[in-house]
């Protein structure tokens, strides 16, 4: 038969997938995958170099003339400064154990999203220019180099770096499977830092970082609006519970400072979690004289500086501690956030030490949070789990009976800081229907929401959906098997990203923070009989007369 087959017909219309090796497949920057370039004003505001207009899909990126030199110098400096990077560059044996563990590879099918290849982007240049072998191979010509996995840093290579380093959410899942413990997230962090040296950031990172530096939070919301928002939540809480809560702001001499990502204050469904914090603090204040203040200046727990450079991360992180110092509190309680905790857990010892604060002790149970001895910052789920364990919260879990809940481990809190049991313990205490997703996609092996590390922009929606697929696929499974209708998590980026991911992949499932569920169950002293949950949805059995 000489007639073309259907596949041939289709392939005639469209180009075939590339069958060339990765080094010879040139990068094509695609719509839906890349994020817009940073606004020069934002780059300038935080004092980063080479602010300018540039467009990723244009040929000319308006690079500084000596960009190569800058990158080489930066690379050298970082190899000397971070021993981990030097080791990660040297010891990969290309065994491939990490290759199929990245949610972006799994969802996109793009082989350059295999962690080993992502790292190889930088490693190939490292081999070429920073090792003796690379120089010797170079002596024999280009093809020899390629066999050794070395290549020159050209403009195309640089573009490939940029494109694929912003398709890594720094989630560290790959590192769990690497027999040598190579952490590709660290390589991405370093690679992005190098790109920032020549002004190549994305705007979804640059502008929140600049806003945070100036106003104290990602959205650039000013202190009075922050307070207005919490006042409004207090009205809502009063409607639902009959109790007026009265949070305090910027109060000097308070025992504890509370800091949470601004997403909890300004974006649904985090707002319900924020109401949850307010109710919890009110409860503790009424029953045990708990003494805590919010700050309208340290109004952001998140840290987009972390996705820019170590220095920017440190600057944004410092403002939280500066506020703690100004107010004279003893320690900091932190809300439900992901990368805020990675920064605290992983970098506070080099950022700090905040020795003007005290080792955190729960004023209610007397528990010493020894794990927070050096950071002086306690995670809200550690704090709540301790309260529940000591029987300090009055809970009615049936008020969550309308929900069938599963739990998403955020990469940063699970892999980044080992917070695995506390959230589960709380969940089991505040709701009766909790179902785990399959073992190979939770706890240390959790899948990223698909939008971490500053990638939750709008223009790269296809990328986010690709990366979100493995997580959503597991949610879909528990939805179909157990009728799960609520996905809980303890990260503000998750609450934003998963909501969108669910809308595309599993629209029957909604997203919640953990503290929202706690507050649903929490019995406030003197409250009226609750008819709705925090979202003003009727509680089971309270659907009203017209439900009949």
């Amino acid at each position, binding site marked *: 038969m000489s007639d073309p087959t259907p596949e041939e017909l289709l392939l005639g219309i469209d180009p075939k*997938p590339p069958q060339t090796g990765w080094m010879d497949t040139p990068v094509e920057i695609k719509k839906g995958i890349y994020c817009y370039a940073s606004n020069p004003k934002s780059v300038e505001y935080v004092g980063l170099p080479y602010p300018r207009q540039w467009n990723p899909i244009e040929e000319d990126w308006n690079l500084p003339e000596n960009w190569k030199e800058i990158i080489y110098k930066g690379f050298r400096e970082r190899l000397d400064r971070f021993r981990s990077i030097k080791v990660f560059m040297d010891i990969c044996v290309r065994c491939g154990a990490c290759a199929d563990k990245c949610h972006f590879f799994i*969802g996109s099918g793009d082989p350059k999203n295999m962690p080993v290849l992502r790292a190889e982007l930088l490693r190939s240049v490292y081999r070429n220019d920073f090792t003796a072998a690379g120089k010797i191979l170079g002596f024999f010509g280009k093809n020899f180099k390629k066999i050794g996995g070395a290549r020159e840093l050209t403009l195309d290579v640089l573009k490939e770096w940029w494109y694929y380093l912003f398709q890594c959410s720094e989630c560290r899942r790959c590192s769990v499977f690497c027999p040598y413990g190579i952490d590709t997230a660290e390589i991405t962090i370093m690679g992005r830092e190098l790109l920032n040296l020549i002004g190549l950031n994305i705007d979804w990172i640059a502008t929140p970082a600049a806003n945070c530096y100036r106003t104290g939070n990602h959205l650039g919301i000013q202190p009075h609006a922050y307070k207005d928002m919490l006042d409004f939540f207090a009205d809502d809480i009063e409607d639902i519970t009959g109790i007026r809560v009265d949070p305090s702001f910027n109060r000097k001499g308070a025992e504890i400072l509370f800091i949470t990502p601004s997403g909890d204050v300004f*974006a*649904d469904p985090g707002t319900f979690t924020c109401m949850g914090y307010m109710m919890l603090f009110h409860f503790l204040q009424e029953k045990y004289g708990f003494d805590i203040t919010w700050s309208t200046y340290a109004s952001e727990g998140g840290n987009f500086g972390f996705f820019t450079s170590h220095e920017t991360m440190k600057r944004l992180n410092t403002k939280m501690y500066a506020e703690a110092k100004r107010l004279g509190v003893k320690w900091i309680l932190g809300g439900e956030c992901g990368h805020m905790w990675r920064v605290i857990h992983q970098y506070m010892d080099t950022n700090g030490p905040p020795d003007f604060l005290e080792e955190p002790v729960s004023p209610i149970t007397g528990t010493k949070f020894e794990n927070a001895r050096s950071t002086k910052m306690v995670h809200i789920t550690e704090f709540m789990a301790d309260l529940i364990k000591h029987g300090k919260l009055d809970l009615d879990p049936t008020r969550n009976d309308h929900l069938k809940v599963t739990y998403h481990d955020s990469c940063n809190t699970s892999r980044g800081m080992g917070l695995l049991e506390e959230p589960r313990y709380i969940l089991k205490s505040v709701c009766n229907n909790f179902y785990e997703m399959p073992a190979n996609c939770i706890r240390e092996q959790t899948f990223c929401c698909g939008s971490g590390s500053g990638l939750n922009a*709008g223009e790269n929606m296809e990328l986010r959906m690709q990366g979100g697929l493995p997580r959503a696929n597991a949610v879909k499974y528990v939805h179909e098997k157990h009728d799960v209708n609520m996905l809980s998590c303890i990260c503000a980026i998750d609450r934003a990203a998963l909501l*969108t991911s669910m809308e*595309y992949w599993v629209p029957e499932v909604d997203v919640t923070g953990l503290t929202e569920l706690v507050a649903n169950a929490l019995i406030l002293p003197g409250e009226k009989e609750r008819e709705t949950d925090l979202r003003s949805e009727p509680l089971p059995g309270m659907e009203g007369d017209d439900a009949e």
Partner: protein
Amino acid sequence: MRLNNLLSQKKAAITKKWFALVIKTYPSETAKFLKSQKDPFANPVGRTIYRELEALFAELLKGIDYETITSSLDPIIRIRAVQNFSPSQATGFIFFLKNVIRESLHKEILEEQIINELLLFESKIDELSLIAFNLYMQCREKIYELKANEMKNRTFRAFERAGLVSEIPEVEPDLKPIINIKEASNDS
């Protein structure tokens, strides 16, 4: 219904071949993974495609119930609609089935009864492709909707609930200047 019997007998082989062709639309390194990793949570793309192709073929043998077909086609299209495919690549894998069937029946195909039944069966495949096209469009529209509304839905809604958004007042503002313009244009 001789064709149906033949196809039913070869069901497993046909699905496998169809799957192999669909997997070939991915780069070779990826294709290897999609084929070999059998855990549905480690390999949602490969396993979803396999599972749903199997269901689709079984459904085609029965008849063509729109709901069932959609529930099997949707997961595959939903994935391919966000991957690196043009619209024809994302949906065109359905036609691969024609070729797989023709090849696996290359002897029987010469019989008159079979050829007639096959033509009918192939038009069912065509129908499938039209459903796939609808689903693909729905997925793409959803993506654009998410792009356009994500920020607005989350942040704007929160501010609006809090009454921090100043809305256009209910009372009509003084309309005089507009009337003036109207008059002016009427005059000319």
